[in-house]
């Protein structure tokens, strides 16, 4: 039973190793910095606040509302966390949520964890922050600005995270760009509306009961400067890359191949080795059958061994160490 069935957590095997490593190289320093920043901001309270709020976001993702015909909308929480805690704490909290989802519930892969963290905890948060701050500075101190800002921040963060996911799938050669990008973008445009509505509902509740919490989340502009720069670069990248990819699916694959993202043609020398060393196994069907036989023997052997060792353990205290 999984509390958060959002189609954004990429499982293992769908991203190429290059894309995976590249995204880890971004995620690790950003999360590391977030850890340090939140330590400075919250001091001793960092561990209890971050830990419990991460649990709250996770539990919050269970809160659904009926959409239509049996489907329901859920909260992802990137925008809400960003508005309440500021971008760095939100990144940290969502990193925890996504990691636990992958590690314990297999909602998202382990190797591609970096990519999932990047999409939701970094891109999602950055974009939500930018949108919210923009709306706030445009609308000023008017009471409804927080709701418009919250709604838009939520919608945009879901949409952009989804586009990022689609782009990564396309660059890995798993999903053709001209299908993935519109599909992910389209579906999440709808999901984003639900996210926006729930976010507004949560903000309304908190504004009524603990307005001081909302005030405290207004971080000074200086801190957000780095986030602005990075965020702007990201948005430009995606804005340029997405329609480009959509219109020229082959072009994207061509680009990917040029940069080594996809498996390109093997050097001819390596192709010759099998011929000389294993002439018999050149027949692929034969190899498959042999492998199936070998595999079956292995599994049965193990099963027998396990059954035998279990029968030998007659008393509960018979604890054999490996």
């Amino acid at each position, binding site marked *: 039973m999984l509390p958060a069935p959002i189609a954004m957590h990429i499982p293992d095997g769908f991203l190429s190793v290059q894309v995976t490593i590249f995204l880890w190289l971004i995620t690790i320093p950003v999360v590391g910095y977030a850890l340090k920043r939140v330590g400075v901001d919250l001091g001793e309270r960092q561990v209890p606040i971050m*830990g419990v709020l991460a649990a709250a976001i996770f539990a919050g993702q269970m809160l659904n509302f009926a959409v239509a015909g049996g489907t329901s909308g859920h909260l992802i929480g990137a925008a809400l966390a960003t508005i309440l805690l500021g971008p760095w704490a939100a990144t940290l909290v969502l990193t925890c949520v996504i990691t636990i989802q992958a590690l314990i519930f297999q909602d998202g892969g382990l190797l591609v964890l970096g990519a999932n963290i990047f999409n939701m905890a970094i891109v999602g948060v950055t974009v939500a922050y930018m949108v919210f701050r923009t709306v706030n500075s445009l609308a000023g101190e008017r009471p409804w600005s927080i709701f418009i800002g919250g709604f838009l921040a939520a919608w945009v963060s879901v949409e952009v995270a989804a586009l990022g996911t689609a782009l990564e799938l396309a660059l890995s050669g798993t999903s053709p760009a001209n299908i993935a990008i519109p599909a992910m973008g389209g579906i999440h445009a709808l999901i984003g509306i639900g996210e926006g509505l729930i976010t507004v509902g949560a903000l309304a509740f908190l504004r009524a009961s603990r307005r001081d919490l909302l005030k405290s989340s207004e971080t000074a502009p200086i801190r957000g400067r780095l986030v602005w720069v990075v965020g702007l670069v990201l948005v430009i990248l995606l804005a340029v890359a997405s329609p480009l990819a959509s219109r020229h699916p082959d072009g994207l694959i061509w680009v990917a191949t040029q940069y080594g993202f996809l498996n390109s043609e093997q050097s001819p020398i390596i192709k010759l080795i099998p011929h000389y060393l294993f002439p018999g196994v050149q027949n692929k069907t034969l190899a498959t059958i042999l492998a199936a036989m070998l595999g079956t023997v292995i599994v049965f052997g193990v099963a027998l061994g396990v059954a035998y060792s279990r029968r030998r353990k007659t008393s509960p205290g018979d604890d054999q160490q490996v």
Partner: protein
Amino acid sequence: MHVHFLDPYRPRNSPIHRLDPRIKLVLTVVFILTNTLIPTAAWPVYILLFALILSVELISDLGVSFVLKRSSLAIPFVLAALPLILTVPGKTLFILPVGSWTIHASYLGLERFISIAIKSWLSMQAAIVLAASTSFPELLVAMRALRVPRLLVSIFGLMWRYLFVLVDEATRLIRARSARSGQSEKPGTKTGGNISWRARVAGGMAGNLFLRAFERSDRIYMAMVSRGYDGEARTLPLPDIRPVYWAILIASLSLLSLLLGFAYLFWG
């Protein structure tokens, strides 16, 4: 009311359960990496890898059906790769005229799709075995060994500790809402309000949950500080890894490298 069933950990007395969590985590990640690197359509190697993970599942006493059932959750995402059948150029599988378009499916596309599905499925099984055979405190040990910052490990520990508590609270909020979600006896009245209202109700519940979480974190902070907490992460030193586990690690790494090399030789 406890939400135990959320925790996938199944305590058993098996060699896999006893295996040092640090080694287990590394092996799981290497297995997944191997899967990812194996070229398309290397069917014999996929079969051998399946035999490998199946053997591990048998030894772990978790029940093969348990693991296979849980791993079927990966299936929906596979749809993302389905279009490959139609878009990868190559020898024709079939041609389907649809209106004014012609849909062209290729063998290569089908192979790519099936390969991705199989590899992903195998990786997921490994992840399930890891989660089901390793208690969370052990996973924290594994994280520390991977050089995850100790402060972050503490946050994970606290998050996990209160995960079930807060999921309990969320469940209670949902139940309270259902208990009040009745239908009127009057004919013609519309039940449930409109979608925007429902979303905002759910949002209010979320806000409620977060507020209580904030206040709870305050109480936890007081309890921590009362026991001397000063903001630094302090832990006991990790025990040494037994030589036999090192041997298992090296043997497994060698086996996986061999399979990978073999696959590249023939299908790369």
